[in-house]
């Protein structure tokens, strides 16, 4: 039996290195939203929205978000209306039954970059740019992974032949992806004057995307603190009551 145990432990120890990843470890960033009291950095998320709007949204949709949701990163109703009004969306039909367009409203979903998946593939060398609404939650270690990916475009190791239409990324599983490096220094002009380095933009866009994946995180954590404090108190009280009730028992 002891032999069995030893075998079990030994094989567990052997297993770990054998399955090590060939990708470098994703660096951990100190995000403002980490930890039980973490919250979103609205200024950063707003900059991130600017990056999304000017860069990412050319290929990636966010179909689960509406413009009205943007009040969640500190934009006011007027700003949201203005952002929404910038896009044109199908507006049903007119009295003659002909389809018409209208400016977007806060209630509209983010406008998709392509009318359908086939159009998206056709424009991207056969690859479908994934929707970004949940991208952070849909990846292991999401915030750090997306951040690493955006900074992970390096020269391929000597001797590697990158297939046509593909690009080399340190962190992408299999290394080759159809998305060329999306961010370059100075690519956007931040309204708040922050210097738009790749590192800065990637952090901002991750801040924005994390909020988009989990817009209720702050409310969840705030309620959680109250619930946990209440339950801790209740545990103490209940234990006291139990002790008192059981005291006379021998």
């Amino acid at each position, binding site marked *: 039996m002891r032999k069995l145990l030893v075998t079990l432990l030994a094989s567990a120890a052997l*297993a770990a290195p054998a399955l090590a990843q060939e990708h470098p470890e994703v660096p951990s960033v100190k995000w403002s939203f980490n930890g039980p009291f973490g919250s979103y950095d609205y200024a950063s998320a707003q900059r991130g929205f600017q990056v999304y709007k000017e860069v990412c949204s050319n290929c990636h949709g966010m179909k689960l978000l509406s413009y009205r949701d943007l009040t969640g990163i500190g934009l006011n109703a007027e700003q949201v209306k203005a952002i929404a009004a910038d896009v044109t969306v199908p507006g049903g039909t007119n009295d003659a039954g002909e389809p018409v367009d209208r400016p977007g409203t806060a209630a509209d979903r983010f406008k998709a970059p392509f009318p359908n998946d086939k159009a998206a593939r056709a424009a991207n060398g056969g690859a479908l740019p*994934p929707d970004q609404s949940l991208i952070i939650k*849909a990846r292991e270690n999401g915030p750090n992974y997306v951040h690493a990916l955006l900074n992970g475009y390096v020269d391929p190791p000597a001797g590697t032949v990158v297939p046509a239409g593909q690009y080399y990324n340190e962190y992408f599983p299999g290394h080759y992806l159809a998305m060329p490096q999306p961010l370059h220094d100075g690519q956007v002009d931040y309204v708040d004057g922050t210097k738009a380095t790749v590192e800065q933009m990637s952090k901002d866009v991750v801040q924005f995307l994390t909020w988009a994946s989990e817009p*209720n995180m702050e*409310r*969840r954590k705030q*309620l959680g603190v109250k*619930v946990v404090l209440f339950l801790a108190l209740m*545990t103490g009280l209940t234990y006291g009551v*139990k002790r008192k009730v059981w005291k006379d028992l021998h």
Partner: protein
Amino acid sequence: MAGLHKSTYQNPVINWIDTRLPLFTMMQKEYGSFPTPKNFNYFWNFGALATVNLIIMIATGVFLAMNYSANTGLAFDSVERIMRDVNYGWLLRYAHANGASMFFIVVYIHIFRALYYGSYKAPREILFMLGVVIFLLMMATAFMGYVLPWGQMSYWGATVITNLFSAIPLVGDSIVTLLWGGFSVDNPTLNRFFALHYLLPFMIFGVVFLHVVALHITGSNNPLGIDVKSPQDTIPFHPYYTTKDSVGLCVYLLVFALLVFFLPNLLGDPDNYITANPLVTPAHIAPEWYFRPYYAMLRAVEWKLGGVMVMFASILVLFFLPWLDTSPVRSTRFRPMYKPFVALLVVSFFALLYVGGKPPEGAYVVIGRVATAYWFLHFLVVLPILGKIERPLPLPESISNPVLRARPPFSGGGGGPLPQGAAAKPMDRA
């Protein structure tokens, strides 16, 4: 025997109701004055916790169902609408998803309690078997519930697991077609899984009721595993165990709250935040953590039908547990030889749980096979043999007199301690 109940309640309204439908008398008898062994430890909280968990699952589930669409085109987005736009929808959904994990944690501890303290032995065989039925229903419910959000892991998990039935000779393929409602996992599958996911919890509730009835007939086991011998051994359920269960309940809710509010996606798979896509297979298909031990057993055997049989047998073997264990002593406390084997069973369980989430290659396969082999060895070989050769420790005289029988041999009278030579066959069997 028809006739009005003679109620002793003073309050005229309660008395009037109790005379016609003696619910108050019944509750008082079964949960108020119900004589309960006085020596429970906190392991005995987990039955009550499982009941509370079932109620939480049904309550959150009903409200989720009000906002969910069981249609492949709508399901994923309807779940996200719950997360984003429904008032406290995120709380309902995270509580329901993590509630499933909590349910399995609680039930696994509950089952371990039964194994360690021999709660399955006479006269509690039916009580235990009803518990195994509940566990099987729970697994079916959890499996179908996981399909409903229609993410990648929902879809591929459903595909892999339903496909297992195709291993059954002759009728396998027809069964799979019947499960799917077509020729692949698709809208009819989602629709019927939703219907069944809503139905099964109420069936669980019914079996839980029988489980509790059976418990109240046999009475509870206890950490010493010996029978209640006199009223001194018991205390009324209320207030003693209502207060003790409340302590456990608070701690349980605390753990539950930490998961829901601070780590809601810890136990989930990121792939399930990607909409189901029949054309893209995820790199690793792994079930939720609570199914991984059985998934590991399934993969431990290369022959498909064999793997399926091993997987189902790993749980069905529990139905025979009351007869496979030949030891007359219930509690492992008094079974020195058995104790390390229980530990080994727990190690195997966790090893399988770990391996079930890893790709089936290299050392994982070896660990999975060794642990699977031990799982069956434990129940089919160790338990039957050990009961015959083991010499249990002397049992205490009674619950209220938990002094071990460390007296000199041949000093006991009627019902007293056994001579040491006879300790291998204690007369503690009811």
